[in-house]
């Protein structure tokens, strides 16, 4: 299973990852449109993003969430009806939505942010699920 991992000890909170993500998928630098969100807790930086746990797959009310061939959890935009059930149910708070979008969005472990991180605090790891 492919998933994005964050090394808390070396992250300096520059949030380049957020910019890279929102720019890649929504053509703007706006963390509200980023699938990774860095939070600052007394200068310790924590990353909120999908762990690819897949809890949202079975609860999806439109059967629109699935694992792709890399076992990454994906939303089928054709099937998704924008009910936001997954947003409410995600225990990681890693499923996001914006009012101008028709479907929620999440980290799909694409690695774009990994390349942009100046501290090399992000990495895509593959594991046996």
């Amino acid at each position, binding site marked *: 299973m492919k998933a994005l991992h964050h090394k808390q000890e070396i992250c300096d909170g520059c949030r380049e990852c957020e910019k890279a993500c929102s720019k890649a998928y929504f053509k703007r630098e706006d963390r509200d449109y980023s699938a990774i969100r860095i939070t600052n807790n007394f200068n310790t930086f924590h990353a909120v993003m999908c762990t690819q746990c897949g809890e949202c797959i079975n*609860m999806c009310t439109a059967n629109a969430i699935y694992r792709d061939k890399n076992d990454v959890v994906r939303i089928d935009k054709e099937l998704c009806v924008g009910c936001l059930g997954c947003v409410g149910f995600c225990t990681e708070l890693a499923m996001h939505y914006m009012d101008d979008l028709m479907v929620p969005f999440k980290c799909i472990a694409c690695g774009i942010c990994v390349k942009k991180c100046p501290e090399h605090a992000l990495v895509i790891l593959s594991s046996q699920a």
Partner: protein
Amino acid sequence: MGRILKSYNYEPGKIFRGYTGKSLYINVGDLRIEEKEVTQLMKDKFIGGKGFDLYYLWKAVKPETQWNDPENEIVMSCGPLGGITQYSGTGKTLVAAISPMTDIPVDSNAGGYFGPLLKFSGWDALELQGKAEQEIVVFIDGNKGLIQIETAEGLAEDSHILAEELTRKYAEDEKDMVNVSVVSAGSAARHILYGMLNFSFYDPRRKTVRFKQAARGGLGTILLDKKIKALVVRFKGINPNLNDVADIGLINKIGVKYHKEMRDLDEKQNGMRKIGTANTILVMNKYDLLPTRNFQTGGDPEAVKISPQVFIENFLTQGIHDGCWYGCTMSCAKTADHFKLLTGPYKGECVTVDGPEYECVAGLGSNLGVFDPQAILEENFYCDTYGIDLISFATCIAFIMECYQRGQISQEDMGGLDLRFGNHEAVLELMHQMSRGEGFGPMAGLGIRKLKKVFAEKFGADPQLLQDIGMESKGLEYSEYCHKESLAQQGGFALTNKGPQHDEAWLIFMDMVNNQIPSFEEKAEALHYYPMFRTWFGLMGLCKLPWNDIVPADNHLTDIPARVPEHVQNYVDIFNGVTGMQIDKAELIRQSERVYNFQRVFNLRMGSGLRQHDKPPYRSMGPVSREEYESRQDLYDKQLREKQGLDPEKMNLDEKIAVTRKYREQQFELLTDAVYKRRGWTKQGVPTLEHLAELGMDLPEVVEVVKQYL
């Protein structure tokens, strides 16, 4: 199969803030298809959903119209909030017609996809009038803007096959099946008066068609009487803002908040995601409320055999989404998959059973003295596929069983069926007879009100006893609660518009357990507020379960926790967010009051709707028989001492029963007085002209009817 009799192309109305602005009229007799404008008056006074249904039905029928006259209409509408996907329980269709059970308007609601897909196809409401010459299927394609009336030859009779056939036929491919919804009845609905409507939705995980029902009042019987085999709608392209709402941000925010609540609290509260409404079986049993053997007692030690745990462990599929419309994270529509049938025409086949819901387990289980979960699920399946209203069936058969047990009718009278309590083989055989239109089936399908007459006239049964134990009012069978110790709930069932059901008020805990509403005025307030509040769901296209089958964590800190104030505010906000209007909680109640009073006047217009029509049978109010009195002797004796100042030691059993009855009947009359007063009605139950004017419902046609009774 399927010759096209009529084809009609239309430009789908554009939805704006919850309304398409158009309704569809189809006369299946002369194949007329018309588009009607939804007027501002309709939106202001009738809102939508059952309000629109009743509005059109009033115009369609005359005071003397019978249920099987061609002018009787089946009207369907899903309401302005129907079809939004962000909040749970937003896919209901409201259906109304003049009922074969009650001869007055009945309204019934169902989940499934039909209503929202109908609206997204361009129609705020659908009227079906006339009678077809031969059996037909009505198909609406909302993407193509096409309505087609086709002949129905070669199609199956029973819903689980018929709806699957039609879903396959009208879907473009496998993936498109979720975009098709079918309304159908079933083989038994041809032979009984309480035939119901199945509303389908395709479950892509189970790869099967599933159903929710608009079950009450014989709507399926009317559908087949009109020779409509099925209605089919297809619409592809569901998205979160097809309603073109005024404030999508508000809707999204409330939706996510609610989904979080469901995630965090459901398991601690009612477990709706695990078991659905059947979670309450053991609770009802413990609180002496589980109707057992025709509502004689409120429970049985054997109830553990039909407990939620038994169904969860042995039958129900867990862990996948089970909603009947998109976005419902309450997900209470449980199924038993790969369920092997042991009787009937589909014996040996493995099927998916939608259920069991609470009413099913209580009605087909304890109330018939059946404590066998396999049998209950099989009865559940056949009720659904044959198109039988499970509640009317259960309550009616419970009545028949007690008549038999008390020697009022014989086995021979029932065509040889040994319908004693607990004999589930006989119950299933009766269902199959209803399907085939043979034996005792059609007679048992008349419902309690008509059977009382038949049993007395044909079989010499005691009319007074039949009146006392037959659990119907206005001609409709009671739903499944043994509520005789709750005066407020006696009113909650009998002081209703369409007959006794649990759609209007459920006050048993508040009244009988919490003792929160001791005075007549307090009971009357509850019998005003709750029926009005709950009517609102029917105007909107909403399911009421998400209102209070889960509550916010801090609900206990609110003024009136039973009302779930935060959720009521959610509904106000969603209404405003969709329509762009600015209502508050008081106006929400007003919206319902308008339609509720209109329906009351509609009853008057059809020759009902007066105090004399609001009477419950005594079984609903107190102990009819010696055994019933004895089963709660301590309670009843205590009441004689404390409420009437009598000494039960000095009275024999029959005296105690008689005195208790007199007292309870008086109490009900006093309750009726208080409720009518609170609702703005005369002592005879007629809405006053002042009250109608205050509500803005003094429409000329309404005033004309009311004046005859003042």
